[in-house]
C-alpha cells in the first residue's frame, strides 16, 4: 500500500486463509510449519492466547473466570515486524510497520501458504482475505475531513462543527458479488491534542468454488490492486503529500 511513499500511513497488513475441515488436524502441525519457515528468519515462536471465559457454580455462588484459550501459534521474525499465525484450518501472514513492499509481502504469503499446505495437506479454501490498516494522525481536533479524504462522512448543514468520533463503512462488490472490498474510516483517538483516524480496507472472497492453491497468487494480485485503488481514491492529494515520496 502506498508503495511510492516515503512514510506511508500503513500500520499493518495481513492475509488470512481459512480452510474447510475436510482433512485431519493435529497439534504437531504448527511445529512442522515452523520448521519449514525458520530458515526464512522466523525464529521467534509465541503462543497466541485469546480470552475465553468459564463459569462454575459452587453452592449458591457462580464463579465466572477469564481464561486464556490457546488456539494458534505465531512465528515472528527477529525484528517482530512480520509473523505467520498457524492454527487449525487457519493461516495468516501479517506485516507490521515499516511495510516491506507488496513484492516482499506477497513472497511471504506464498512461502507461508506453501509450508502450511505441505504440512496439513489442506485441500479446500473456505475464505481468503487481504487487509490493510492505515492510521492518520493530525494535530488538534475537528480536522477538515473534506480537505483530507474523498471517502468521508457527509455532515448536513447546520450540524455542529465539533463532530466527535465517527464510523463510516461501505462494501463494494466486484465480479458479480463474488469478491468484496470493504472500506471503513473510523476515529481511533479524538483529542484533546490530536486526532487519529483509521482507514481499514479488506478485500475478501465468498466464492472459492474451484479455486486452486496455484491460482491464489493471481487472486491476491487483483485483491492488492483493488485495495490500492480504494486507498488512493479515499485520500485527497493534500493528505498524500504529507507521506513524502520515496527516493530512487
Amino acid at each position, binding site marked *: 500500500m502506498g508503495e511510492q511513499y516515503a512514510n506511508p500511513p500503513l500500520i499493518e497488513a495481513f492475509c488470512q486463509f481459512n480452510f474447510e475441515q475436510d482433512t485431519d488436524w493435529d497439534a504437531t502441525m504448527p511445529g512442522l510449519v515452523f520448521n519449514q519457515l525458520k530458515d526464512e528468519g522466523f525464529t521467534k515462536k509465541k503462543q497466541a492466547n485469546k480470552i475465553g*471465559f468459564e463459569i462454575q457454580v459452587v453452592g449458591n455462588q457462580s464463579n465466572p*473466570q477469564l481464561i486464556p484459550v490457546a488456539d494458534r501459534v505465531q512465528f515472528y521474525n527477529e525484528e517482530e515486524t512480520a509473523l505467520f499465525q498457524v492454527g487449525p484450518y487457519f493461516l*495468516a501472514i*501479517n506485516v507490521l510497520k515499516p511495510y516491506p513492499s507488496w513484492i516482499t509481502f506477497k513472497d511471504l504469503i506464498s512461502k507461508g501458504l506453501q509450508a502450511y499446505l505441505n504440512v496439513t495437506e489442506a485441500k479446500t479454501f473456505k475464505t481468503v482475505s487481504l487487509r490493510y490498516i492505515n492510521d492518520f494522525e493530525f494535530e488538534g481536533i475537528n480536522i477538515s475531513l473534506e480537505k483530507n479524504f474523498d471517502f468521508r462522512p457527509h455532515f448536513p448543514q447546520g450540524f455542529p462543527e465539533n463532530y466527535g468520533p465517527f464510523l463510516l463503512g461501505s462494501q463494494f462488490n466486484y465480479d458479480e458479488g463474488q469478491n468484496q472490498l470493504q472500506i471503513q474510516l473510523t476515529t481511533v483517538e479524538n483529542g484533546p491534542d490530536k486526532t487519529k483516524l483509521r482507514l481499514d480496507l479488506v478485500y475478501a472472497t465468498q466464492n472459492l468454488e474451484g479455486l486452486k492453491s496455484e491460482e491464489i497468487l493471481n487472486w491476491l494480485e487483483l485483491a492488492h490492486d483493488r485495495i490500492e485503488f480504494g486507498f488512493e481514491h479515499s485520500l485527497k492529494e493534500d493528505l498524500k503529500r504529507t507521506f513524502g515520496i520515496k527516493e530512487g
Partner: protein
Amino acid sequence: MERNSYFLLDSPKLTNEATVSEGRTLFNPNNFKNHRGVELLRNLDTLISDAAILTGRESNIVLQDLRNETTSITYTIHRKLSVIDKLNFSYKEKERVIDYLKQNTELLDLIIESYSVIRNHFRFDPLTLKLHSDTETGYEDYLILTILTGLKATEAIKELDKIDDEWWLNNFHRANDKLSIDLVYR
C-alpha cells in the same frame, strides 16, 4: 467444604458449541464464528450478566472480545487494552501505564489473566497498576500491580502463595521482569 459444581451454561443447546473437559465447560471462541454463534452469544450474554450480578464481577466484557476477529495484531492489542480498561483496576498516572503496556504488549495477557486469578483470592481488595521508574540507578522500568488488602498479613501472604502456586510461578517468565505483583496492607 463439599464442592458441588454445575454449569450455568449446561443446556443441550449450548453444549453443542462447547468443549467439555475435566468437568469444566470451556467455550472456545472459534465456535462462535457462525450465525448460530451470534444467537448463542446473545443467550450467553444474558447468562453471564446474571452471573456477573450474582458475583459483582465484570464478566460481560469478555463477550465483546469474542465477537471480534483476532487475526490483526493492531486490533488485538487495542482490544486487550480495552478489556484491561474495563477491569476494576485503579491507576497511578494511567497514561504512563497505558503507554508502557502499548510498548510491552507481552504484558497484556498477563494483566488480564492476573485479574481473574487475583480476584479468586482477594475478592474485593482494590487493585492498582503503576509504573515504577528509577532514573538514578538506570534500571529498566517495570509495572507494579498492587493488591491493597484488608486481610491480616499472615492470611494475605497465604493467599499470595496460592496465587504463586496456581499461576504466577508458571507464568512469570512471560513478564520478562516487567511486572511485579505486590501486597500492601490497609
